[in-house]
């Protein structure tokens, strides 16, 4: 500060305590929202149930431990960009499915990502978590398709197709990193997952499991770094 002038924060001390508090709260709110790239506080219309959230967090932790202790594999080897550098803001995103339509053989799940994140971040990794409630013993063929809306939004384009053999009830994970990267790269915010089964138990994927076995995508992202020019 030029000599004789106050430092930026010094003016605060001259205010009445209630005004000081109001100023600090306004500053704190503005600071949090701007750092999260949010124009305003989100209005939550469909909060995720606590059971679904806790279950998802447990699954992610279990998955990381499994990955870290796999024989012959260094810890976190599946997370190639875990340490992008000091000061780079990272995000972990949990997107729970919205179901659009289901039949006995087929179900469609939608995962919607917020525009601010799609624009400002790059996806490092994304995993789809599905819980199978297998109705009977044996091997059950399942096809999982990742779909993306075309620019008109009317039709769907298939990004990838994976065939699985499900043998028992439990969680299955699928790497959807490239698909989500592609969707973000094209300015879209929605990933659609189509699950098709040969028998008539597709609805079991969602029915009765809303609380703790709800399908979700866990993604890791970081703030998109602008290209830097260095001068020596």
């Amino acid at each position, binding site marked *: 500060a030029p000599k004789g002038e106050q*430092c930026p924060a010094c003016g605060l001390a001259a205010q009445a305590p209630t005004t000081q508090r109001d100023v600090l709260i306004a500053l704190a*709110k503005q*600071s949090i929202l701007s750092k999260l790239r949010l124009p305003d*506080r989100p209005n939550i219309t469909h909060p995720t149930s606590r059971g679904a959230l806790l279950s998802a967090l447990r699954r992610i932790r279990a998955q990381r431990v499994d990955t870290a202790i796999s024989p012959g594999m260094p810890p976190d080897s599946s997370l190639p960009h875990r340490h992008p550098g000091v000061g780079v803001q990272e995000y972990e995103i949990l997107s729970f499915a919205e179901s659009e339509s289901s039949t006995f053989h087929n179900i469609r799940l939608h995962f919607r990502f917020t525009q601010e994140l799609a624009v400002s971040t790059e996806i490092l990794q994304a995993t789809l978590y599905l819980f199978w409630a297998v109705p009977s013993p044996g091997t059950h063929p399942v096809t999982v398709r990742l779909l993306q809306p075309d620019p008109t939004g009317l039709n769907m384009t298939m990004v990838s197709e994976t065939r699985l053999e499900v043998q028992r009830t439990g969680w299955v994970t699928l790497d959807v990193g490239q698909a989500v990267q592609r969707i973000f790269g094209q300015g879209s915010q929605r990933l659609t997952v189509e699950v098709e089964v040969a028998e008539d138990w597709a609805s079991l994927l969602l029915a009765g499991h809303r609380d703790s076995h709800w399908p979700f995508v866990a993604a890791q992202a970081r703030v998109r770094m602008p290209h830097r020019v260095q001068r020596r």
Partner: protein
Amino acid sequence: GIDCSGTSRMCCRKEFFMDFKEIGWEDWIIQPEGYHMNYCAGLCPLHMAGIPGLATSFHTAVLNLIKANNADAAVDSCCVPTHRRPLSLLYYDRDSNIIKTDIPDMIVDACGCT
């Protein structure tokens, strides 16, 4: 860094906690329950410049040089954060997704004179 006490007017760290429930943000911020923002306040006489200070080796050298050469042109020193840490947040975004992130440099841990 020094935490502010009742009597001292020198540069120190003032604690400030914003309870998310109090401002009606508890519906979209899942964790933590509030924000320990803290801030720096107090006087920084010129002789305190660079104590403990930011990048002291460079700034102290320049300030001392200015002081030595021309006291009238000297600048006042400011009480600023010298150590900050990130704020971890678990929150709902606008599409009801759940996001976890660490916002860097959000919590003031220590203050000092520039």
